[in-house]
Protein backbone atom coordinates (compact mmCIF):
# COMPACT_ATOMS: atom_id res chain seq x y z
CA UNK A 1 0.00 0.00 0.00
CA UNK A 2 1.53 3.32 -0.99
CA UNK A 3 1.70 5.88 1.73
CA UNK A 4 -1.06 8.46 1.61
CA UNK A 5 0.18 11.84 0.57
CA UNK A 6 -0.97 14.43 3.07
CA UNK A 7 -1.94 17.68 1.41
CA UNK A 8 -1.75 20.55 3.81
CA UNK A 9 -4.33 23.20 3.10
CA UNK A 10 -3.38 25.55 5.91
CA UNK A 11 -2.51 29.05 4.88
CA UNK A 12 1.24 29.57 4.77
CA UNK A 13 2.69 31.53 7.67
CA UNK A 14 3.86 35.04 6.82
CA UNK A 15 7.60 35.65 6.76
CA UNK A 16 8.91 36.01 10.29
CA UNK A 17 11.31 34.77 12.89
CA UNK A 18 10.29 31.78 14.94
CA UNK A 19 11.78 30.07 17.93
CA UNK A 20 10.79 27.86 20.85
CA UNK A 21 7.18 28.81 21.58
CA UNK A 22 7.14 32.16 19.75
CA UNK A 23 6.79 33.54 16.27
CA UNK A 24 7.68 37.13 15.48
CA UNK A 25 6.30 38.82 12.42
CA UNK A 26 4.92 42.15 11.36
CA UNK A 27 1.56 43.08 12.78
CA UNK A 28 0.46 44.04 9.26
CA UNK A 29 1.03 40.52 7.90
CA UNK A 30 -0.80 38.91 10.76
CA UNK A 31 -3.80 41.15 10.52
CA UNK A 32 -3.77 40.87 6.75
CA UNK A 33 -3.87 37.10 7.05
CA UNK A 34 -6.73 37.20 9.53
CA UNK A 35 -8.70 39.66 7.39
CA UNK A 36 -8.33 37.84 4.13
CA UNK A 37 -9.49 34.49 5.40
CA UNK A 38 -12.54 35.84 7.14
CA UNK A 39 -14.16 38.24 4.72
CA UNK A 40 -17.92 38.47 5.11
CA UNK A 41 -19.56 39.34 1.81
CA UNK A 42 -22.75 41.31 1.34
CA UNK A 43 -24.45 39.86 -1.72
CA UNK A 44 -26.21 42.68 -3.49
CA UNK A 45 -27.77 40.36 -6.03
CA UNK A 46 -30.14 42.00 -8.44
CA UNK A 47 -30.47 39.77 -11.49
CA UNK A 48 -28.93 36.85 -13.37
CA UNK A 49 -25.48 37.14 -11.81
CA UNK A 50 -27.22 36.64 -8.48
CA UNK A 51 -28.11 33.09 -9.47
CA UNK A 52 -24.48 32.37 -10.40
CA UNK A 53 -23.51 33.85 -7.05
CA UNK A 54 -25.94 31.43 -5.38
CA UNK A 55 -24.38 28.60 -7.40
CA UNK A 56 -21.00 29.71 -6.11
CA UNK A 57 -22.19 29.45 -2.51
CA UNK A 58 -23.46 25.93 -3.04
CA UNK A 59 -21.42 22.75 -2.53
CA UNK A 60 -20.05 22.42 -6.07
CA UNK A 61 -18.02 25.65 -5.96
CA UNK A 62 -18.27 26.43 -2.25
CA UNK A 63 -17.39 29.96 -1.27
CA UNK A 64 -17.35 28.95 2.38
CA UNK A 65 -13.93 27.32 2.15
CA UNK A 66 -12.48 30.76 1.39
CA UNK A 67 -13.69 32.10 4.69
CA UNK A 68 -16.92 33.66 3.48
CA UNK A 69 -19.09 31.36 5.52
CA UNK A 70 -21.57 33.92 6.68
CA UNK A 71 -23.35 36.05 4.15
CA UNK A 72 -23.96 39.28 5.92
CA UNK A 73 -27.05 41.03 4.71
CA UNK A 74 -26.53 43.93 7.00
CA UNK A 75 -24.03 46.44 5.61
CA UNK A 76 -22.75 47.30 9.05
CA UNK A 77 -21.35 43.82 9.52
CA UNK A 78 -20.03 43.16 6.05
CA UNK A 79 -16.52 43.50 4.69
CA UNK A 80 -17.00 43.02 1.03
CA UNK A 81 -19.83 44.22 -1.20
CA UNK A 82 -20.52 41.91 -4.12
CA UNK A 83 -22.67 43.73 -6.61
CA UNK A 84 -24.10 41.03 -8.85
CA UNK A 85 -26.41 42.13 -11.60
CA UNK A 86 -27.71 45.19 -13.35
CA UNK A 87 -27.98 48.40 -11.39
CA UNK A 88 -30.51 50.84 -12.74
CA UNK A 89 -30.53 54.54 -12.14
CA UNK A 90 -33.47 54.09 -9.78
CA UNK A 91 -31.38 51.76 -7.64
CA UNK A 92 -28.23 53.91 -7.70
CA UNK A 93 -28.98 55.95 -4.55
CA UNK A 94 -29.84 52.75 -2.68
CA UNK A 95 -26.48 51.23 -3.60
CA UNK A 96 -24.62 54.34 -2.56
CA UNK A 97 -26.47 54.35 0.74
CA UNK A 98 -25.48 50.75 1.39
CA UNK A 99 -21.85 51.45 0.50
CA UNK A 100 -21.78 54.42 2.87
CA UNK A 101 -23.24 52.36 5.68
CA UNK A 102 -20.49 49.77 5.46
CA UNK A 103 -17.69 50.20 7.97
CA UNK A 104 -14.04 50.38 6.94
CA UNK A 105 -12.20 48.33 5.76
CA UNK A 106 -14.48 47.54 2.87
CA UNK A 107 -13.94 46.30 -0.65
CA UNK A 108 -16.28 46.23 -3.63
CA UNK A 109 -16.43 43.55 -6.30
CA UNK A 110 -18.43 44.34 -9.43
CA UNK A 111 -19.60 40.94 -10.64
CA UNK A 112 -20.75 40.70 -14.20
CA UNK A 113 -20.75 42.92 -17.22
CA UNK A 114 -23.75 44.95 -16.10
CA UNK A 115 -22.19 46.01 -12.82
CA UNK A 116 -18.82 46.68 -14.44
CA UNK A 117 -19.97 48.77 -17.36
CA UNK A 118 -23.67 48.48 -18.04
CA UNK A 119 -23.25 45.26 -20.03
CA UNK A 120 -25.51 44.69 -23.00
CA UNK A 121 -28.00 47.24 -21.68
CA UNK A 122 -26.92 50.58 -23.08
CA UNK A 123 -30.24 52.22 -22.28
CA UNK A 124 -31.67 55.29 -20.63
CA UNK A 125 -32.55 53.46 -17.45
CA UNK A 126 -29.42 51.43 -16.67
CA UNK A 127 -26.41 52.85 -14.84
CA UNK A 128 -23.44 52.23 -17.10
CA UNK A 129 -21.23 50.69 -14.47
CA UNK A 130 -21.30 51.05 -10.70
CA UNK A 131 -17.97 52.84 -10.74
CA UNK A 132 -19.97 55.90 -11.65
CA UNK A 133 -21.23 56.08 -8.08
CA UNK A 134 -18.98 54.03 -5.82
CA UNK A 135 -15.29 53.08 -5.99
CA UNK A 136 -14.73 49.51 -7.16
CA UNK A 137 -11.79 47.27 -6.29
CA UNK A 138 -12.24 44.23 -8.50
CA UNK A 139 -14.19 43.82 -11.74
CA UNK A 140 -15.29 40.33 -12.74
CA UNK A 141 -16.39 40.36 -16.38
CA UNK A 142 -18.80 37.85 -17.88
CA UNK A 143 -22.46 37.54 -18.60
CA UNK A 144 -22.85 35.83 -16.22
CA UNK A 145 -19.29 34.96 -15.13
CA UNK A 146 -18.76 31.33 -14.23
CA UNK A 147 -18.64 30.71 -10.48
CA UNK A 148 -14.94 29.97 -10.78
CA UNK A 149 -14.39 33.46 -12.17
CA UNK A 150 -16.27 35.02 -9.29
CA UNK A 151 -14.10 32.98 -6.93
CA UNK A 152 -11.02 34.36 -8.69
CA UNK A 153 -12.36 37.86 -8.12
CA UNK A 154 -12.88 37.04 -4.47
CA UNK A 155 -9.34 35.71 -4.22
CA UNK A 156 -8.06 38.99 -5.64
CA UNK A 157 -9.85 40.82 -2.84
CA UNK A 158 -8.16 38.45 -0.43
CA UNK A 159 -4.80 39.40 -1.93
CA UNK A 160 -5.71 43.09 -1.63
CA UNK A 161 -6.70 42.74 1.98
CA UNK A 162 -3.40 41.06 2.79
CA UNK A 163 -1.25 43.61 1.07
CA UNK A 164 -2.97 46.93 1.68
CA UNK A 165 -1.92 49.13 4.53
CA UNK A 166 -4.00 48.73 7.64
CA UNK A 167 -5.19 52.28 7.88
CA UNK A 168 -5.79 52.97 4.24
CA UNK A 169 -8.72 55.14 5.20
CA UNK A 170 -6.22 57.72 6.42
CA UNK A 171 -4.18 57.89 3.22
CA UNK A 172 -4.68 61.00 1.09
CA UNK A 173 -5.29 59.02 -2.11
CA UNK A 174 -8.18 57.22 -0.55
CA UNK A 175 -9.63 60.42 0.86
CA UNK A 176 -9.41 62.02 -2.59
CA UNK A 177 -11.07 59.02 -4.16
CA UNK A 178 -14.00 59.16 -1.81
CA UNK A 179 -14.33 62.88 -2.29
CA UNK A 180 -14.46 62.47 -6.03
CA UNK A 181 -17.52 60.29 -5.55
CA UNK A 182 -19.11 62.67 -3.11
CA UNK A 183 -18.93 60.24 -0.20
CA UNK A 184 -17.68 61.68 3.06
Amino acid at each position, binding site marked *: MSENKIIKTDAPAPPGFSGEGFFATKLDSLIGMARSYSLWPLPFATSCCGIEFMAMMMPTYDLARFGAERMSFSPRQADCLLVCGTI*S*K*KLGPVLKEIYTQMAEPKWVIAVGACAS*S*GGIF*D*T*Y*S*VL*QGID*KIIPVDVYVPGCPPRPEQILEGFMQVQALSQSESLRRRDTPEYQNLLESYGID
Partner: protein
Amino acid sequence: MTNEFVLEAIQREFSDSVISHSEPYGFLTLEIKKEDIKKIIHYLKDSSLEINFLTDICGIHFPENKEKEVGVIYHLHNMMTNFRIRLKTFMPIENTEVDTITDLFAGANWMERETYDFFGINFKGHPDLRIILNDPDLGYHPMLKEYRLEDGTRTDKDDKMFGR
Protein backbone atom coordinates in the same frame (compact mmCIF):
# COMPACT_ATOMS: atom_id res chain seq x y z
CA MET B 1 -66.77 29.49 -31.32
CA THR B 2 -65.28 30.72 -34.54
CA ASN B 3 -63.96 34.10 -35.57
CA GLU B 4 -66.99 34.72 -37.81
CA PHE B 5 -69.44 33.93 -35.04
CA VAL B 6 -67.85 36.32 -32.57
CA LEU B 7 -67.33 39.02 -35.19
CA GLU B 8 -70.98 38.79 -36.21
CA ALA B 9 -72.12 38.95 -32.56
CA ILE B 10 -70.07 42.08 -31.93
CA GLN B 11 -71.12 43.76 -35.14
CA ARG B 12 -74.74 43.08 -34.38
CA GLU B 13 -74.55 44.66 -30.94
CA PHE B 14 -72.17 47.52 -31.71
CA SER B 15 -72.51 48.09 -35.40
CA ASP B 16 -71.00 51.57 -35.49
CA SER B 17 -68.17 50.99 -33.02
CA VAL B 18 -66.15 48.57 -35.07
CA ILE B 19 -63.97 50.51 -37.49
CA SER B 20 -62.24 47.58 -39.13
CA HIS B 21 -61.51 43.91 -38.63
CA SER B 22 -58.89 41.47 -39.85
CA GLU B 23 -57.48 38.05 -39.05
CA PRO B 24 -53.69 38.13 -39.15
CA TYR B 25 -52.41 34.59 -38.64
CA GLY B 26 -55.92 33.44 -37.75
CA PHE B 27 -56.28 35.78 -34.76
CA LEU B 28 -59.41 37.93 -34.83
CA THR B 29 -58.36 41.57 -34.56
CA LEU B 30 -60.81 44.45 -34.35
CA GLU B 31 -60.22 48.15 -34.37
CA ILE B 32 -62.71 49.86 -32.10
CA LYS B 33 -63.62 53.50 -31.54
CA LYS B 34 -62.00 54.93 -28.43
CA GLU B 35 -65.26 55.80 -26.63
CA ASP B 36 -66.82 52.35 -26.98
CA ILE B 37 -63.92 50.10 -26.06
CA LYS B 38 -65.01 49.66 -22.45
CA LYS B 39 -68.58 48.82 -23.43
CA ILE B 40 -67.38 46.18 -25.85
CA ILE B 41 -65.00 44.60 -23.35
CA HIS B 42 -67.78 44.57 -20.76
CA TYR B 43 -70.11 42.94 -23.28
CA LEU B 44 -67.54 40.30 -24.20
CA LYS B 45 -67.04 39.54 -20.51
CA ASP B 46 -70.65 39.32 -19.40
CA SER B 47 -72.46 37.90 -22.40
CA SER B 48 -72.66 34.27 -23.43
CA LEU B 49 -69.41 34.73 -25.36
CA GLU B 50 -67.64 34.56 -21.94
CA ILE B 51 -64.40 36.16 -23.10
CA ASN B 52 -63.55 36.93 -19.52
CA PHE B 53 -59.79 36.60 -19.13
CA LEU B 54 -57.60 39.60 -19.77
CA THR B 55 -54.32 38.42 -21.21
CA ASP B 56 -52.56 41.68 -21.80
CA ILE B 57 -52.76 45.42 -22.40
CA CYS B 58 -50.05 47.23 -24.28
CA GLY B 59 -49.50 50.43 -26.18
CA ILE B 60 -48.09 51.25 -29.57
CA HIS B 61 -47.00 54.41 -31.33
CA PHE B 62 -47.23 55.08 -35.05
CA PRO B 63 -45.93 58.60 -35.61
CA GLU B 64 -46.95 58.61 -39.29
CA ASN B 65 -50.68 57.96 -38.85
CA LYS B 66 -52.07 61.42 -38.34
CA GLU B 67 -54.89 61.60 -35.77
CA LYS B 68 -54.28 57.99 -34.78
CA GLU B 69 -50.74 57.97 -33.51
CA VAL B 70 -51.02 56.23 -30.19
CA GLY B 71 -52.90 52.98 -29.71
CA VAL B 72 -53.88 50.68 -26.90
CA ILE B 73 -54.11 46.99 -27.67
CA TYR B 74 -56.09 44.55 -25.52
CA HIS B 75 -55.71 40.80 -25.77
CA LEU B 76 -58.63 38.84 -24.33
CA HIS B 77 -59.16 35.15 -23.95
CA ASN B 78 -61.96 32.68 -23.37
CA MET B 79 -60.28 29.86 -21.51
CA MET B 80 -63.07 27.33 -21.83
CA THR B 81 -63.19 27.31 -25.64
CA ASN B 82 -59.66 28.63 -26.14
CA PHE B 83 -60.75 31.61 -28.19
CA ARG B 84 -58.57 34.69 -28.35
CA ILE B 85 -59.38 38.15 -29.63
CA ARG B 86 -57.38 41.33 -30.03
CA LEU B 87 -59.00 44.76 -29.74
CA LYS B 88 -57.20 47.89 -30.81
CA THR B 89 -58.10 51.49 -30.33
CA PHE B 90 -56.23 54.50 -31.57
CA MET B 91 -56.17 58.13 -30.51
CA PRO B 92 -54.46 61.35 -31.56
CA ILE B 93 -51.25 62.20 -29.77
CA GLU B 94 -52.59 65.51 -28.43
CA ASN B 95 -55.32 63.81 -26.45
CA THR B 96 -54.34 60.29 -25.38
CA GLU B 97 -57.00 59.11 -23.03
CA VAL B 98 -59.18 56.08 -22.76
CA ASP B 99 -61.41 54.54 -20.10
CA THR B 100 -59.90 52.23 -17.59
CA ILE B 101 -61.04 48.63 -17.24
CA THR B 102 -59.78 48.09 -13.71
CA ASP B 103 -63.36 47.73 -12.47
CA LEU B 104 -63.84 44.80 -14.87
CA PHE B 105 -60.49 43.10 -14.39
CA ALA B 106 -58.35 43.59 -11.28
CA GLY B 107 -55.28 42.64 -13.28
CA ALA B 108 -55.61 45.67 -15.53
CA ASN B 109 -54.26 47.92 -12.79
CA TRP B 110 -50.56 47.44 -13.36
CA MET B 111 -50.93 46.75 -17.06
CA GLU B 112 -52.46 50.19 -17.52
CA ARG B 113 -49.85 51.79 -15.31
CA GLU B 114 -47.13 50.27 -17.47
CA THR B 115 -48.81 51.56 -20.64
CA TYR B 116 -49.12 55.01 -19.07
CA ASP B 117 -45.48 54.92 -18.05
CA PHE B 118 -44.25 54.04 -21.51
CA PHE B 119 -46.63 55.98 -23.76
CA GLY B 120 -48.30 58.65 -21.66
CA ILE B 121 -51.83 57.34 -22.18
CA ASN B 122 -54.17 58.59 -19.50
CA PHE B 123 -56.62 55.95 -18.28
CA LYS B 124 -59.68 57.79 -16.98
CA GLY B 125 -60.90 56.42 -13.69
CA HIS B 126 -57.79 54.44 -12.80
CA PRO B 127 -57.41 54.32 -9.01
CA ASP B 128 -53.69 55.03 -8.91
CA LEU B 129 -52.19 56.06 -12.23
CA ARG B 130 -48.51 56.72 -11.72
CA ILE B 131 -45.17 55.65 -13.08
CA ILE B 132 -44.35 52.07 -12.27
CA LEU B 133 -41.18 50.84 -13.95
CA ASN B 134 -39.17 53.89 -14.89
CA ASP B 135 -37.38 56.30 -12.63
CA PRO B 136 -39.78 59.08 -11.58
CA ASP B 137 -37.02 61.59 -12.36
CA LEU B 138 -36.91 60.53 -16.00
CA GLY B 139 -39.48 63.09 -17.03
CA TYR B 140 -40.69 61.66 -20.32
CA HIS B 141 -42.53 58.63 -21.68
CA PRO B 142 -39.71 56.61 -23.16
CA MET B 143 -41.34 54.18 -25.58
CA LEU B 144 -42.55 56.92 -27.90
CA LYS B 145 -40.60 56.74 -31.11
CA GLU B 146 -39.04 60.18 -30.86
CA TYR B 147 -36.92 59.30 -27.84
CA ARG B 148 -33.60 57.56 -28.19
CA LEU B 149 -32.62 54.33 -26.53
CA GLU B 150 -29.14 55.10 -25.21
CA ASP B 151 -28.33 57.60 -22.61
CA GLY B 152 -24.99 58.87 -23.74
CA THR B 153 -22.78 58.28 -20.71
CA ARG B 154 -21.16 55.13 -22.02
CA THR B 155 -17.43 55.76 -22.48
CA ASP B 156 -16.16 52.53 -23.99
CA LYS B 157 -18.16 52.52 -27.21
CA ASP B 158 -16.32 53.87 -30.20
CA ASP B 159 -18.71 55.70 -32.51
CA LYS B 160 -16.57 55.02 -35.58
CA MET B 161 -17.04 51.29 -35.10
CA PHE B 162 -20.73 51.45 -34.28
CA GLY B 163 -21.69 53.56 -37.21
CA ARG B 164 -23.36 56.39 -35.35
